[in-house]
């Protein structure tokens, strides 16, 4: 009978239409991401035509075309400098976006993101400690991402503990304790950098506060790619249904077979790991984690199985464009990318606040 019902009334639940829509968006965004990559690699202080970019990448990857029709400096710029940078931008954008999705489901607040919850600042402190004092040196070449991860995890646990002290965890308490912890840790990081007298070292205060993709190198990409693609995006997509359930509230989650505390803990580890790795590679970039989840929900609805991959693609595209603007706007001078994301993100936040007020929630 139900089968007949589905046939007869044609997509009674609205699921088939939604699936088609999601499929189309995924295809469109994937195409958009590839085009973005080619254009972004070509833009900068020295412009290179997209066709040449495609040829150089093809030549390097699969040896096609075999004939060299470009100059060696062009090849060096594309392959050694800009491609790793653009790929890092994609990974950072995708990673921050899906972390924002996870945190918004987790704290049930549309204003949650790694930056506002103080997780970025924890990662910065951890990474700065590794650079200045050699913390985590036992982890060899992974000392930096490892101590950034531990810093992020410590900060997020601290935020949750502060929010929990004295009763129920509410999202407003979480956000406020996130802001408090965030400020305290950024101040600490900056103080340490100045106090150590190496403010001109490899990573400056500016890097930790506003981020930069300028340190992208091939050898560092692998860890970031593994954590973002294999860790965050895959895990969160697979856990999509549980994110839906967690977003309904702890009690509903429990009655639908998801243990809220345990799942939240796992999410915190995944988010901290991702943010730690991203921040150690590109500094602290705000607003992507806040803005992109909303855009994703707007175009494919609320279920996280759809929101996570769409947010990843959108985040990747947005961050790469933000970086292009950062490189081109005052070329040859480079603007910290966090300035661009903030300029794009802040008006969006204002719109969001107005809408929250209007619906009375």
């Amino acid at each position, binding site marked *: 009978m139900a089968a007949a019902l589905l046939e007869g009334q044609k997509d009674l639940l609205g699921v088939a239409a939604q699936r088609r829509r999601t499929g189309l968006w995924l295809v469109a965004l994937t195409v958009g991401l590839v085009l973005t990559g080619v254009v972004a690699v070509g833009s900068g202080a020295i412009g290179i035509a997209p066709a040449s970019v495609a040829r150089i990448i093809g030549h390097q990857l699969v040896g096609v075309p075999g004939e060299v029709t470009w100059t060696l400096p062009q090849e060096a710029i594309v392959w050694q400098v800009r491609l790793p940078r653009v790929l890092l931008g994609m990974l950072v954008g995708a990673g921050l976006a899906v972390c924002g999705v996870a945190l918004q489901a987790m704290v049930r607040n549309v204003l949650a993101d790694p930056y506002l919850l103080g997780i970025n600042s924890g990662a910065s402190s951890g990474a700065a400690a590794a650079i200045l004092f050699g913390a985590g040196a036992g982890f060899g070449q992974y000392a930096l991402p490892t101590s950034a991860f531990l810093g992020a995890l410590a900060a997020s646990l601290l935020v949750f503990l502060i929010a929990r002290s004295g009763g129920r965890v509410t999202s407003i308490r979480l956000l406020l304790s996130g802001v408090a912890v965030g400020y305290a840790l950024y101040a600490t990081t900056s103080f340490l950098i100045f106090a150590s007298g190496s403010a001109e070292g490899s990573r400056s205060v500016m890097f930790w506060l506003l981020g930069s993709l300028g340190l992208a190198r091939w050898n560092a990409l692998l860890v970031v790619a593994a954590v973002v693609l294999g860790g965050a995006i895959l895990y969160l997509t697979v856990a999509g249904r549980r994110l839906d359930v967690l977003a*309904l509230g702890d009690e509903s989650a429990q*009655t639908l*077979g998801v243990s809220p505390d345990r799942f939240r803990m796992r999410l915190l580890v995944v988010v901290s790991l991702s943010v730690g790795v991203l921040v150690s590679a590109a500094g602290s970039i705000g607003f992507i984690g806040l803005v992109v989840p909303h855009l994703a929900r707007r175009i494919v609805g609320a279920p996280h199985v759809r929101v996570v991959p769409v947010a990843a693609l959108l985040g990747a595209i947005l961050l790469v464009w933000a970086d292009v603007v950062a490189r081109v706007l005052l070329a040859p001078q480079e603007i910290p990318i966090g300035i661009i994301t903030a300029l794009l993100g802040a008006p969006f936040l204002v719109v969001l606040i107005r809408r929250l007020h209007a619906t009375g929630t």
Partner: protein
Amino acid sequence: MIEATGVSWRYGANPVIDGVSVAARPGRVLGLIGPNGSGKTTLLRLLYGALRSGTGQVMVDGDELSALPSREAARRLAVVVQETGGETALTAAELVLLGRGPHLSTFQRIGRAEHEIAARCLTRVGAAHLGARAFAQLSGGERQRVLIARALAQQATHLLLDEPTNHLDIRYQHEILHLVRNLNTCSIVVLHDLNLAARYCDDLVLLDRGGAVVAGTTEEVLDPEVLEPIYGIGIRRLELDGAIHLLFQPVDQTTDERSAA
């Protein structure tokens, strides 16, 4: 079969539920009734594990509830709590489909079978036309029916409902309880309305402030002599076409008013 023995809960220093034992038997509807503040909802929350009693235990089909993995617990107990998910952006159908989660492995996708179950459950509560609508934009009664559809889609062996008739028109109050009764699953329902309890429950547990309890069949518990002191109102019981009906009238209204003044 849900069997709670000697469970308790206190808010601050006040015990709300104090050493209460409840048994919900297979294929029967157990009603939890009592005046406001008597701890009906608290007792229900103890029974589905949202609250963990410091004393006694809750057994579900012979296993201790607190020892069950959460997914297994959700296959045994489907719960409809009051007013939830008001700010979710999910559609009604997506919300109902979440009820299938406990039956799917982590990597299993929602398929045609799940959609059919969801469509059938929405149809059963008269909400098939609401499937594609945003849950948050539905009226209170429509939401309640969608949440009941989700509990049905969960296909658990027990169904627990906290005042499922809240927000519902009189027609749906009866339809929903009629539906619950005809499921022939072991069900526990918190009810405010004693006449609904009379018509749809097999057994009743009557709670009073301070935790005193009367348990028995509906026939036994809905006795004016039992109810009157607890509710503080005059009750006359009629049997009409084989069903119990209760009529209420204030007792000693004049003396009550005087003592209140």
